[in-house]
């Protein structure tokens, strides 16, 4: 076992982990951060994408199934659950909702985290740049079109340029539902 200490969604944890523990499983099994999901075992699908600070402290998107928990020692991790800590939606989350950028929602946490990272690097991406920027995330439901639209819209909102028109009607901000936990 190895002792690690890291910050996840603003909370500092110190744990003993087996070196073979993948960050994705550490988040899910030891921290209960089940918002981050695992969709493959070859780092293709990107569903497990989280932000992890690099050696310079800059948050970067990584596939948490391709990182050992021990490699995250001393780092800061942000998951989909910590994207909007005060309960408000992050603009990217809101855009995914407003642009109907999800159907089953399984790829969504990773997709949103990748998109947040992309827009941090490129605040005004074209549709093609969004498509390239999300090449590490697979979605089987949406054909990506509305995802691309959502990222462009969120980027606009984050630049303060005002949101692009929604595909849908005036957004009713969805009330966050309480987490469902099995007994």
């Amino acid at each position: 076992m190895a002792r690690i200490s890291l910050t996840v969604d603003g909370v500092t944890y110190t744990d003993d982990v087996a070196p073979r523990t993948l960050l994705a499983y550490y988040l899910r099994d030891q921290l209960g951060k089940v918002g981050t999901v695992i969709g493959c075992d070859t780092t293709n699908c990107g569903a497990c994408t989280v932000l992890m600070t690099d050696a310079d402290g800059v948050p970067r998107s990584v596939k948490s199934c391709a990182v050992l928990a021990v490699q995250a020692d001393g780092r800061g991790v942000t998951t989909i659950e910590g994207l909007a800590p005060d309960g408000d939606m992050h603009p990217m989350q809101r855009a995914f909702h407003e642009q109907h950028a999800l159907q089953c929602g399984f790829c969504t946490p990773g997709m949103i985290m990748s998109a947040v990272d992309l827009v941090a690097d490129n605040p005004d991406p074209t549709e093609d740049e969004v498509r390239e920027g999300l090449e590490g995330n697979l979605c089987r439901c949406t054909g990506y079109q509305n995802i691309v639209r959502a990222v462009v819209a969120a980027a606009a909102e984050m630049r303060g340029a005002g949101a692009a028109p929604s595909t849908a009607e005036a957004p009713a901000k969805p009330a966050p539902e309480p987490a469902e936990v099995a007994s």
Partner: protein
Amino acid sequence: MTAVAEPEIGRARLRKEDARLITGRTRWTENIALPGMLHMAILRSAHAHARISRVDVSAAAAAPNVVTAFSGSDVAETQGTLACAWPVTEDIVMPTYPPLAVTEVRHVGEPVAVVVARDRASALDALELIDIDYEPLPVVRDMEAALGEGSPLVHADAGTNKSYTWIFDSAQAGSGGDVAAAAQEAEVTIKQRYVQQRLIPSSLEPRSVIVDPTSGDWTIYSATQIPHILRFLLAATTGTPEHKINVVAPDVGGGFGGKLAVTPEEWIAFAAANRVGRPVKYTESRSETMVSAHHGRDVIQDITLYAKRDGTVTGLDVKLTANMGAYLGLVTPGVPILGAFMYNAIYKFPAYRFECTGVFTNTTKTDAYRGAGRPEATYAIERTMDELAAELGLDPIEVRRRNWIKHEEFPFTTVATLTYDSGNYEAATDKAMSLLGYAELRAEQEARRAADDRVQLGIGISTYTEMCGLAPSRVLGALRYGAGGWENASVRMLPTGKVEVVTGTSPHGQGHVTAWSQIVADRLGVPFEDVEVRHGDTRIAHKGLDTYGSRSLTVGGIALVQACDRVVEKARTVAAHLLECSTDDLEFADGTFRVRGTPDAAKTMGDCALAVFAAHNLPDGVEATLDADATFDPQTFSFPHGTHLCAADVDRETGEVHIRRYVCVDDVGRVINPMIVEGQVHGGVAQGIAQALFEEAVYDADGNLLTGSFVDYTIPSAVDLPTIESDRTETPATSNPLGVKGVGEAGTIASTPAVVNAIVDALRPYGVRDVPMPCTPERVWRAIRSASSQEVTS
């Protein structure tokens, strides 16, 4: 409540489902942890065909943290068998399908032994300690070889690799002429062989199941599309009383037919939980999914089309060889049969014969994958219509016009015996052509052809229809399907005026909660926000037949309407009583009963609900509940249709295909939520393009799946797919009160032939008549090369 509300139906309502999905507060099966829960890992056969000569799990059972380990022989008596619900012919060969192989394995990935441990890692570690010896048996992978004399047999006791042959002949059915006669009189004959490659549905959420045997009942959480069918079959095949089984489909991360299954893993988890008396969880890894979850398509299509020189088709002969894989899954044999009614598509063919032979091979079983039989049919006929057009020198749209059912000819009974209630192929096609700028692109194509450009432009057309709304129970019965096709809904008015809806459909991404809320809001005149929709738990949704085959809205939606109407009728009685008038004096609008001529005398649905709850003043004989339950069994199918146009650039040098424009105009009848409909079209088109260009499950001669991960089974990412320009025409279905038709599979059905037609169209001047799917750059390059070398030699 007095303002006239805009109708909810037709509004692009944002989805109620999204909030938890975009914040990670989701309840996937894999997220559920129960007290005392153990983890299961499965040892799978590495052999495509072998006798199990010895299995020793003792070392695994003794490993740290391992609670139990067992193999097929340990549970042979109790594990039950997996059932096929669709024996399509009387003499179908339907082999026993043990969840855990006992004596023989018949495909790579078949489960052979199990470890149940305290944690996932320990279970996986212990799997490596299982000692197992196989005696390899001859492998048959190729369907046509399997039907040949002296082929190794997948099921020796069956004596054959043929599962069934199913035939439809319009001459015998009385729905059309004799294809043999059409053949004799044909002025033009188009003969084509198409291969529908094997695909893997690949929902992003892997399959996952938890079986909880504690508390006196069995609760099964499963990432399934079909909780109700799962419950029924689990009871029927394990001998567990049905009323002691509860199945929950929590949040389910996509299905596409891949979770329209009762899986060996569900049964094995059941057996494991039975052994240990504790909750057992199993979540497969993606590399397990690839070899063990069912695959789709894998059909060889021999198509012969007979026509006159004016382009009028006179007959169609279809011979299919369909790969069942090693076993028959839930609806494996029926998948190609669903396509039997669709080869004639939107056309007025006078004679039609269809024959399908199902074949066993040492491969993972096939079963439903988005469209199930109908994409295959549409691909074959739409590719063939293009070949007919080329043969006759006609524009491919023109040849379709000369054969399709005109809008004034509906209802129209087809040569395949179905009665299409409505449609307007002309309108959808005209709209699509205008959106694309068809004439301009044809002109550009001419110019590029004349210049012999390296990159050629192709325009692909696909005019499709599909049968949705599975299905009239009597039809299913006639087709020997083991269950009905009805759907159930119940609607409960709560005392505060809120509405609780329970549906028997089981969504896994389709947005039923939102769409059903819209329907109910309109029907009951309550706010959209006041409706909650429950599903996917057999303890709550007692009755249902689940979600597949674009059936949920066209069947479940109608049940919902009926339940709403019953609630309104009951409320009307209550309102009349409260308003001291006759029910006939009441009119109902916007959720309010008003006395005709005295609009101030009014009771809302909420008023009625509260009055029923209080029950202080109810009419005689009226029970103190304001709810209703309805089951709807459709009398016929619904028939969405549309026209998809694909403009593709094809690089003759590298064979690369770039989809430049993709335009689709779909007619799915009345639309409940256009945003959701558009999303379904996008996703469907993406999967159809994926079949055309990217995906293929490849086996080697020994029966190994070579595309055993997402590294080699190449699912397209955002970069690989085009922007889809979608629009609609709206010709309401006349066969149901909502006028809806279904949209879940339309895009997938339509897009594959549109893309391949575009590629072939681009290369036709270079002698190319077909490119096998998926049309990888190398295949396109080879098609060009072999066509040009043939031209040189001929």
